[in-house]
């Protein structure tokens, strides 16, 4: 049950008006001057977290998402009590275990065994308690003989295994996880997910931090979105996802326009009678963009200018994923109703657009290569071939499917129950 453990009221974590201001000094000695001779301020203020209100009820699983630098980690430090807020108050009820970063809270010279004891006693466990849980922790971590080696010799995967094993086995009331799970192998990730599910079923509280909406969505009912130190939206994951997409889109556009300005460094070749002057991705409203939403309408448009006459040019597009996987390629001729483009004259200008009602790509970064080939010969030759002409990002908040492509599909479950002649059929169109 969601509110097990006999707790029916109150919050596991409650933060009100919380802000954290760092004092940035140009030189470390200025900090000392300020301490000894108060008066003149020699620092700049930086508010990493500002005016945060967060109420996490017992037994809930809450996600905090935001871009890098949005203040997530600082907020977590405030919630765990490592660092103290400059303004406001944080109230936490119960034992908190946190997994803030790879290898955080480990002493590199200590062995895995010693670090387990160190961490457990920091969490306030008694010797007997630690002794009792020790075998379970070691078993869960699968570290085997490595448990007696200093943790500085561990691989990053081993760090995560040890860290998670300790945090999950100490039986905390509140577990705070900061993206650490993304490092382990699939097998261990599965174990962690199971452990987290058990944890939720026991009515414990989990706070999960990530910059990946998808990861947060599968785990959390309630999501808080952070941006520039503030929680800009909180609510059900569906509600927050929209705002998240809007912001990612704006940020992605900014980042990718910069990236695209540098696209001239990719190869481009051809005879040059006709030049592709502009390659644009258009959003459903027909506006240029660099960020598209999965399953939205989209279009790719090129503008051209003919410098000389050209007999039989053909425009085409190739879509690639950022790792170079060829996803799709087509042109205006390979169609049931082909467009035959003939006899372009010198000085002519125009545009060619490919549009689709639904972008079937899933989350990731992709790029477009444009082809302009002369098909008047037996083997087509390049007129203007532009590799990597446009980079764009696909956002998918719904995460209905995994992988690269969205397959419009229908699911059917047919059950034959004992004693009933007709099968029970359940059908899902989308």
């Amino acid at each position: 049950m969601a509110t097990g453990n006999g707790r029916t009221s109150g919050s596991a974590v409650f933060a009100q008006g919380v802000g954290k201001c760092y004092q940035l000094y140009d030189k470390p000695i200025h900090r000392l001057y300020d301490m000894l001779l108060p008066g003149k301020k020699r620092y700049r203020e930086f508010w990493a977290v500002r005016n945060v209100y967060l109420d996490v009820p017992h037994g809930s699983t809450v996600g905090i998402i935001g871009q890098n630098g949005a203040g997530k980690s600082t907020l977590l430090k405030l919630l765990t009590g490592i660092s103290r807020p400059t303004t406001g108050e944080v109230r936490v009820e119960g034992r908190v275990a946190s997994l803030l970063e790879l290898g955080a809270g480990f002493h590199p010279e200590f062995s895995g065994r010693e670090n387990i004891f160190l961490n457990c006693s920091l969490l306030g466990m008694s010797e007997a308690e630690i002794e009792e849980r020790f075998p379970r922790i070691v078993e869960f971590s699968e570290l085997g003989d490595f448990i007696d080696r200093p943790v500085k010799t561990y691989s990053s995967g081993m760090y995560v295994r040890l860290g998670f094993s300790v945090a999950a086995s100490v039986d905390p009331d509140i577990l705070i996880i900061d993206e650490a799970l993304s490092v382990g192998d699939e097998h261990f990730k599965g174990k962690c997910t199971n452990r987290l599910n058990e944890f939720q079923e026991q009515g414990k509280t989990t706070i999960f931090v990530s910059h990946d909406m998808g990861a947060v969505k599968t785990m959390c009912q309630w999501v808080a979105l952070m941006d520039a130190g503030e929680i800009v939206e909180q609510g059900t994951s569906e509600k927050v996802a929209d705002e998240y997409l809007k912001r990612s889109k704006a940020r992605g556009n900014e980042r990718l326009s910069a990236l695209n300005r540098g696209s001239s460094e990719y190869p481009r070749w051809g005879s040059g009678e006709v030049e592709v002057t502009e390659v644009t991705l258009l959003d459903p409203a027909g506006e240029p963009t660099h960020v598209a939403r999965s399953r939205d309408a989209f279009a790719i448009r090129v503008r051209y200018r003919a410098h000389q006459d050209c007999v039989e040019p053909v425009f085409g597009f190739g879509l690639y994923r950022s790792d170079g996987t060829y996803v799709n390629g087509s042109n205006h001729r390979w169609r049931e109703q082909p467009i035959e483009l003939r006899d372009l004259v010198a000085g002519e200008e125009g545009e060619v657009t490919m549009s689709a009602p639904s972008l079937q790509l899933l989350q990731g970064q992709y790029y477009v290569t444009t082809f302009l080939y002369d098909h008047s010969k037996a083997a087509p030759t390049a007129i203007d071939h532009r590799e990597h002409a446009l980079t764009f990002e696909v956002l998918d908040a719904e995460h209905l499917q995994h992988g690269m492509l969205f397959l419009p599909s229908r699911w059917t479950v047919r059950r034959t129950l004992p004693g009933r002649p007709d099968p029970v059929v359940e059908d899902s169109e989308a």
Partner: protein
Amino acid sequence: MLALTRSLWQNRRLLRDFVRRDLKARYVGSSMGFFWSVIFPIVNLAVYMFVFRLILKMRFSDSASPGDVAIWMLAGITVWAAFAETVSRTTNTLVENTNLIQKVVFPSEVLPAYLCISSLINMLIGLPIVLLGVWWFAYGPGSNFETETASLALQAAESRPRDQTLGFGAPMLLLPVLMALQALLTVGLGYLLSTLNVFLRDTYHLVGVFITVWMFATPIFYPERMVRWDYKPALDRFEPGQYAWILDVNPMHWLIKSYRDVLIFADWPDPLMLGKFALVALAVFALGTSFFQAQKARFPDLL
């Protein structure tokens, strides 16, 4: 001060684990193990004896036996080494353990304390060598080497009008008191300097230099008499030394002198001197801990 002491008590298990771990690290990885805490002061002693007695031909007195001087020096070196090591290690300890302080809720007051305890234990391991030497020259095979003159020689070295002979006796019971006072001073300095080092990393390097200067300002390798009195050949008599004031403002001199009284001369230390040291140790402890306590909450942000 009280809050900090209470917190150390609450975290005594953690403290114990850290001390145990540190002692293990000192000895487990090395093939000579515990011998290192004995060998290190002895090698130091041999070097200083060589330099001061054989090269510089420094005279402790007319008839001091080399063995007696060695014991006298060794007692000083052992105490000083524990003090110096702790002060320089604690200065950097907060910076070194950034990972713990910044990433988990960690009682950082444990760090200077465990280093101090660990080096005191290490010192205790080295002390039996000193005591063995005392036994050798006072009661064992070395005693027929004219103990009388030897101890008289040392007496001159100490420039004290009291009768001092090597030996064991009831004053040794004061050893725990001396160690407790030493711990108070050391850990107090540790809290002060480690906090300062968080603000200004140069502290660590400054401390290194300062410790060397301090060591030579303390009568460890040379007799106190040589600072206290200046021989004026023209007048053929001793005048108060020009730098005698250094001895009067150097708490480590008071401490080491008391240790020597207790450990090798079976004598009660000068209560006034010990009292002064206790006051200084308490004051440094109070200052260090309150500075540390006041800044502690900021450590995760500053490191």
